[in-house]
């Protein structure tokens, strides 16, 4: 009953879609994590006004569906004069989403830093920036690294929704192929398999990077 050979002529479509998904994930992960680290710092060490603004942003994003945020950005913003291509809208949605979640996660890591570290760094003459970047941030991220990894994977999987505003990603390719050859089950099954592969590879990549970055404990 299943017939996968009908999919073969569309290998190109799938590969192109896969590439778009990988590309979107790569950029949004980088930008989202950087933004998340900045916002987490602002929320943890900023004035109460700054911390309040950040937490409103975090709660707004975390308590509304990704697809609604996407529609708001893609369909809603043009009516107040902000025109975005599907790719740009999708990218922005992914970044603000990951940033909100990673803010919360990284902040939890920062919160576990013993007070003595800040005091010791101050005594040694380190500035706030130096203490944050050279003393506090890396161990803080190390503590919450597994949660951060999972969140990045969740955002990658969530990007399937971008197909709804016609970003030519992997899901878009699956929709296109099944509309041409009516092999919907096979098409979606293969696509789901590709996403699963991507998720597994992403976890592996994060683990590899983690071992590199957090290897300072090993005395050589």
């Amino acid at each position: 009953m299943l017939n996968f050979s009908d999919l073969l002529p569309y290998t190109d479509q799938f590969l192109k879609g896969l590439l778009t998904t990988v590309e979107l994930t790569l950029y949004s992960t980088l930008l989202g994590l950087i933004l998340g680290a900045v916002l987490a710092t602002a929320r943890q060490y900023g004035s109460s006004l700054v911390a309040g603004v950040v937490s409103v942003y975090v709660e707004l994003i975390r308590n509304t569906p990704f697809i609604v945020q996407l529609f708001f950005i893609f369909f809603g913003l043009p009516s107040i004069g902000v025109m975005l291509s599907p790719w740009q809208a999708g990218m922005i949605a992914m970044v603000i989403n990951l940033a909100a979640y990673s803010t919360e996660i990284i902040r939890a890591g920062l919160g576990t830093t013993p007070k003595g570290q800040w005091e010791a760094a101050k005594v040694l003459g380190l500035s706030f920036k130096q203490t944050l970047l050279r003393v506090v941030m890396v161990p803080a991220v190390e503590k919450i690294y597994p949660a951060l990894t999972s969140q990045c994977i969740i955002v990658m999987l969530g990007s399937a929704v971008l197909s709804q505003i016609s970003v030519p990603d992997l899901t878009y390719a699956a929709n296109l192929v099944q509309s041409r050859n009516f092999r919907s089950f096979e098409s979606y099954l293969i696509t789901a398999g590709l996403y699963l592969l991507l998720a597994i590879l992403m976890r592996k990549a994060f683990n590899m990077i983690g071992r590199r970055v957090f290897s300072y404990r090993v005395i050589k």
Partner: protein
Amino acid sequence: MIEFSNIDIIRNLLIATQWTILLSLAAFAGGITVALLLTAARLNKTPLLSIFVRIYVEVFQGTPLLMQMFLCFFGLSMISIEISAWNAAALSLTLFTSAFLVEIWRGCIDTLPKGQWEASRCLGLSFLQTLRYIILPQAIKTALAPSIGFSVQVVKGTALASVIGFVELTKAGSMLNNATFEPFKVFTFVAIIYFILCYPLSWTSKFLEKKFNASR
């Protein structure tokens, strides 16, 4: 053309919200049921069953919810099982929810010291008695906060049912947008309604987490 006032838009959105709530409840109830079965299977320590649960979790956590919905909706109808958008959405959300819950609960059960199992065995308690009187009362306490926290993801997940044509809040928003050409307003309303649904859950989860952490 029919004119829509703000009141009309909100009224229509609220009607659709009922379906979002219903779908969330169905998915969460279904998810809890399946997750309980899977947790039981995992605790049974039969290698084959634990491998099955591991693969189950990996597959449903490692693929997009949207893909799972497409497979339920288009896939099942291809093997000549007619399935409505409601059933497909409820089924895929159930599977998705159970995969996450079983993983959350695994953490809660596994963090309990192993000695408790051994001590219960020494006291002559059976497996089920140990579970009922020793393990579950403690595990439920720690599992409550993250489970409620995850229910937010379920409510948000129901938004994807709009893609397979089930008319819930997001779909109603898209339809109203097509009728009114006021996307900014419509999707702002939609987002506010989702926020009102989700925020109390997030808040409760955070509150419980603090409460149980403080007592320890």
